[in-house]
């Protein structure tokens, strides 16, 4: 149990998707103008990451990794399908996002209209594909770890976008130099937040 908690905390703070790996920056900068929409997108990303990561883990474990097809036939022990992983992962993510969009549209039109524009965006959010690729690279031991990592990095991303949105809401009252206004200052603030987040690196987990 302790391992899972460690991994969860680590993926939120130490290996934060935005500040440590710059993943999901595009929507991070585009959608962080108000706390409310940022929270909506954050929840959607947490959900998609927490579901697609275990799926991709199983696909990687039983189909894509070198020698993973042994369960089908011992002859396949030397088969290595890992070159297909990009295409499989992105297909799973895009298909899942499309399914979520259709389900939400059918059963909860109010939620759909408030989240509608962000849902298709998640398919091309680098944090989601990045989560799957990191999972593959770091070789997590079982589905539970993959799920914990997905949930943790999703919450880390949500934390980053919500705090950023809160800062930007206040920023509209401050007197920023003209050429730096909007985009420029957002980059610099993200950088400063990143430096603050680096202090979590000292935590031994």
């Amino acid at each position, binding site marked *: 149990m302790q391992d899972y908690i460690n991994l969860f905390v680590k993926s939120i703070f130490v290996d934060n998707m935005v*500040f*440590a*790996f*710059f*993943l*999901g*920056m*595009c929507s991070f*900068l*585009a959608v962080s103008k108000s706390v409310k929409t940022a929270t909506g997108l954050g929840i959607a990303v947490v959900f998609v990451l927490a579901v697609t990561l275990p799926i991709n883990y199983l696909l990687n474990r039983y189909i894509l990794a070198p020698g993973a097809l042994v369960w089908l036939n011992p002859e396949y022990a030397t088969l290595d399908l890992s*070159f*297909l*992983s*990009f*295409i499989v992962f*992105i*297909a799973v993510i*895009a*298909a899942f996002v*499309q399914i979520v969009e259709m389900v939400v549209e059918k059963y909860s039109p109010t939620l759909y209209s408030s989240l509608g524009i962000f849902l*298709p965006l998640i*398919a*091309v*959010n*680098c944090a*989601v*594909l*990045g989560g799957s*690729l*990191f999972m593959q*690279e770091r070789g997590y031991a079982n589905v539970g770890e993959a799920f914990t990592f997905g949930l943790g990095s999703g919450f880390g991303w949500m934390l980053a976008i919500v705090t950023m949105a809160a800062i930007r809401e206040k920023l509209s009252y401050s007197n920023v*130099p*003209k*050429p*730096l*206004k*909007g*985009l*420029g*200052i*957002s*980059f*610099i603030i*993200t*950088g*400063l*937040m*990143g*430096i603050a987040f*680096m202090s979590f690196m000292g935590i031994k987990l």
Partner: protein
Amino acid sequence: MNKDIYRKPIFTANPITVLVLGICSALAVTVQLKGACVMALSVTLVTGFSSMIVSMLRNTIPNRIRIIVQLLIVALFVILIDQFLKAYAYDVSKQLSVYIGLIITNCIIMGRIEAFALGNKPIPSLIDGLANGFGYGMILVFIAFIRELLGSGTLFGYQIIPQSWYVANGGFYENNGLMILPPMALILVGCIIWIQRSVQKDLQEK
């Protein structure tokens, strides 16, 4: 032919500093110049060729599933590049790790496909894609140049700052360790935007 197709993405509509696309992978690979150059080249090729293919297929892709089809076309080119790098430049491929795979979700590529390739002929789409990739790569290489020179005192892995300057050898110079850390890339991009918008006043936000 319209010169704007290749002139605009490089200056007035640069994908990184003006359109804010493709930041995700742009920053992580800029610690060293070598990785940045490989990344810039890869993104340029993927953007160009996937734009061209999507443009060829633009009248046959059903609208509702076009995102998946586009992603698969892009993924195909990224796999080719990834396999090529693994075979011929293994150390660079290791250094770039997941960021090669993340070219798939690079917003520049999807952005250009959605905004340009879906409504234009293959050849202009190819040029548009290559030019956008180049505009992206230019910023990438520039940031990597500053970060590697000031952060490690090297360029392409070769020592540029003379060894005798360093404090360890009785000199006065010390590498700026902050440059190597991830947040510095963000602050540098912020500064580039600042400089560009001071010159081109029409880009300033209200």
